[in-house]
């Protein structure tokens, strides 16, 4: 990681955001902070996956939520759970680790399935296809109620993971009003972020990473030199999808329940906002982007109070998303490279 002014600024801004959250919430700042960090970890991990799609390979993937969804559903359906309105119980299942690995592979395979036909499409068409595919996934998942529990969702699956929870978490959180179960998920997400970043750093400096960069620069030249550009793009698509799948599992465990409404287009847009904020193409960018983003979001009720006297849930959500929308626009117009991205590295033209 290069220590330069951009990185220092990013660290400063992140620290200031965390500090502000502390200061602006004199009652129980720790709870808000733990919550923030947990969400930041999960969403940051997903943004890292998206960054591989867009930052490394220049693919406009607007269906990212579906990769998270596939990972979550496949993993959770393979462990003990209860699904649907009646809460039909499936009491046996695979060990969590195995289910998780299968879930990640499933997400990667879905990436392959989607990518195979779509990757030859021009940028804006790929965007439309990925959104459409994600919507189809969501609609089908919602419809096959007997398996996925439809809108009633799936519950009672947390034990498979929580039984591995380290006891120091319970002890550390004794005096704080924050669920140890959630904290465990949050901790795991940051551990996975670190592991993923190490893996990606390694890949980036490898011949594979070099090949991918060449594909981003000029596909035709890559082909003329005997390399299969399409297969390289597909591999990166699968990698990013797999990472998103992992994030999706963590997201479901964070809530303790899984249902299709978790994986709507808005989730994809959140991840995009975080990725752009952190810096397209930067490995560590999503970390900073995610923390700052969630710090902003967690203070939206303050903004909402300016407009509404007693903002209800819908209105809070509304203000939150208005801010997200404005944030995305302002970033793309004035600072598309975000915090840590390199301006020259941005692929801002449809190929």
């Amino acid at each position, binding site marked *: 990681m290069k220590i330069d002014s951009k990185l220092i600024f990013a660290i400063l801004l992140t620290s200031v955001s965390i500090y502000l959250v502390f200061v602006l919430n004199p009652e129980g700042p720790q709870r808000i902070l733990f919550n923030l960090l947990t969400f930041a970890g999960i969403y940051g991990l997903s943004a890292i996956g998206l960054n591989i799609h867009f930052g490394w390979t220049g693919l406009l993937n607007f269906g990212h939520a579906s990769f998270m969804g596939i990972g979550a559903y496949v993993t959770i359906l393979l462990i003990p759970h209860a699904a649907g309105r009646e809460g039909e119980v499936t009491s046996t299942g695979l060990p969590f680790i195995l289910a998780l690995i299968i879930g990640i592979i499933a997400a990667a395979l879905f990436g392959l399935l989607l990518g195979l036909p779509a990757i030859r499409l021009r940028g804006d068409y790929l965007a439309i296809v990925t959104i459409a595919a994600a919507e189809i996934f969501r609609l089908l998942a919602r419809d096959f109620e007997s398996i996925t529990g439809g809108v009633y969702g799936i519950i009672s699956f947390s034990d498979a993971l929580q039984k591995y929870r380290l006891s120091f978490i319970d002890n550390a959180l004794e005096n704080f009003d924050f669920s140890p179960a959630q904290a465990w998920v949050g901790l795991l997400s940051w551990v996975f972020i670190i592991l993923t970043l190490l893996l990606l750093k390694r890949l980036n400096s*490898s*011949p594979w990473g*070099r*090949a991918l960069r060449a594909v981003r*620069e000029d596909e035709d030249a890559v082909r*003329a030199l*005997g*390399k299969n550009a399409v297969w390289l793009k597909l591999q990166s698509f699968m990698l990013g999808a797999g990472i998103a799948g992992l994030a999706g599992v963590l997201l479901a465990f964070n809530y303790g329940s899984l249902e299709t409404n978790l994986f709507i287009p808005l989730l994809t847009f959140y991840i995009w906002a975080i990725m752009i904020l952190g810096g397209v193409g930067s490995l560590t960018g999503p970390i900073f982007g995610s923390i700052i983003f969630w710090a902003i979001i967690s203070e939206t009720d303050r903004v909402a109070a300016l407009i509404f006297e007693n903002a209800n849930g819908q209105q809070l959500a509304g203000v939150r998303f208005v801010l997200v929308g404005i944030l995305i626009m302002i970033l793309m117009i004035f600072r598309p490279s975000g915090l840590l991205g390199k301006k020259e590295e941005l692929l801002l033209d449809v190929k």
Partner: protein
Amino acid sequence: MSNNLLEVNSLKKSFGGLQAVNIDNLILRKNELTSIIGPNGAGKTTFFDLISGFQSSDNGEVIFKEKDITKSQPYQIARMGMIRTFQLTKVFDRMTVLENLLFSASSVSNDSFSRGILKLPSQKKYEKELLEKSFKLMEDLNIKHMANSYARELSGGQKKLLELARSIINDPEVLLLDEPLAGVNPKLAEDILEIIQKLAINGISIIMVEHNIEAVMKISERIVVLAEGKTIADGNAKEIRNNPEVIEAYLGKDDE
């Protein structure tokens, strides 16, 4: 084993009613330096695209080393030994000159995902070899001083040189050069021409599209003239220079 390198039969390609390429039969032989010339719009680049897999023909067949490659993908044809360059130089802008070469030199299996994760000692050794190969080539071509410059910082002529370097680093059998001298200053053009000649002497079969007639006449063993998608002449420099049809096709056209 025939001496035929590339054979094209009844090759047709049209765009919206306009026939870009219409070649009955053309045979290119091994170890020859063949130039393809013709006025603008004669179909030269389309012809290149058709034989290198970048465009599909409406009709006809392309046979390379006695295999039918009419429907093959560009990367497959390149792996068979035919490497091409492009009219509009395609260097990897945001990668260094060295990286451009390393990528080209690296084998497909070395580029694999699994090797990206594992770091076996054999890979390290291979990467070292790639570095040596790249540096040697850069030295030969006099571009070693630019090794760490980003490709986009190069001048037009230097980019052409880099593209050429990339194409030859793995000793291809056939080199398709699409206007290797276009937009290059005369001094550098001379150097590039010399390099091309040396490559031909070392046994690489070369097919070159060029507008620089002087250069073409100087180094080509064989010249094929295309006009309106058809071959109108085929012979050595002297024959072509005196061919009335060729003169007529070029009448009033400047070479660039």
